């Protein structure tokens, strides 16, 4: 090789990164070329300086990191959202739970409907036996007739819904004091 190789190639040659056909040729050239030998020497100087820099105290950091790794809390499992959580239930338990939920749902619905419609309740206790009637607002008149039309002496207690609002319209038919026990002759 007459021409000197590029300095980048000499750097790669130093790293053993030049392919085999060229490696020998460059070695021969460097042996006979003072200029290239000088480049190689300066690159070697840098390499030796870096190698001296490799002498770092790694034992203490190594021990500290080992301790940190040993006392490390295990990684928390990924959080599963409630909506994506799967629950395994035996079929009978699942059926029972569904029936229970359905019953509860119906009960709540009935109670809600009753409270919404505002039932008027009348309790009658003829001869020690207690009867209960409950009618919505629009049937109050019929209820009063039924109570008034009784031919025997009975004690009746009329209970109005707690949140009832009575508005006097025309001839008042019913007042809040209707809650007072009324004696029939």
């Amino acid at each position, binding site marked *: 090789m007459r021409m000197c190789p590029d300095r980048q190639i000499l*750097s790669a040659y130093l790293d053993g990164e030049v392919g085999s056909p060229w490696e020998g040729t460059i070695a021969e050239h460097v042996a006979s070329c003072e200029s290239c030998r000088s480049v190689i020497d300066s690159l070697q100087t840098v390499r030796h300086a870096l190698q*001296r820099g490799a002498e770092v105290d790694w034992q203490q950091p190594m021990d500290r*990191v080992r301790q940190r790794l040993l006392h490390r809390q295990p990684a928390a499992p990924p959080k599963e959202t409630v909506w994506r959580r799967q629950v395994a239930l035996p079929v009978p338990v699942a059926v029972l739970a569904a029936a229970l939920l359905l019953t509860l749902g119906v009960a709540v619905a009935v109670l809600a409907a009753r409270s919404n419609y505002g039932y008027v309740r009348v309790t009658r206790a003829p001869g020690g036996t207690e009867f209960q009637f409950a009618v919505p607002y629009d049937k109050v008149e019929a209820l009063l007739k039924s109570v008034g039309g009784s031919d025997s002496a009975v004690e009746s207690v009329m209970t109005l819904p707690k949140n009832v609002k009575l508005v006097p319209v025309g001839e008042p038919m019913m007042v809040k004091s209707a809650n007072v026990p009324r004696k029939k002759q």
Partner: protein
Amino acid sequence: MSSTEYAHPPSFNVVYETLFPVIYRVSLRVTGDREIAEDLCHEAFIKLMERNDAISDLEQSKYWLIRVVKNLSLNHEKRRTREKKAFSKLSRISPGLADSSEKQVMKEETRSDVQAALNDLPYNLRVPLVFREYGDLSYKQIGALLGITESNVKVRIFRARERLGKALAEGDAYVS
């Protein structure tokens, strides 16, 4: 079969004992800060522990750990660049104050002339050289890690050596 290949994957202890010095050197020379280098090693080995699939040999483990260190060190490098910019800004406003602050940071971060010279190299030259000299990676591996061609690796390593040689010869690096 090379000396680092095993019939069964090496245990974590073997990997740790063998590779910690290499990974620590690489981290230290890339970041120039002992504490950060230690933290990077800690993070890298945690990631290795959490890997689901076993790594077959030490050479592969080393390559994998250096890749993790490279990714983690990027954040540090960004912060360092911001700090350097802040220093240069400060030096324009108050030259005396910036000089003393920078000297203090240099004193804390560098403990050798080699490290000081490495710190002065741009990140894209420093990293290939460190991976080559301290990680003993081939040009092909470095290229794959950095997403550049082997030819580019060759150029960067040469330029890094050239600049480093100049800096060391001039002796302008800070020596504690």
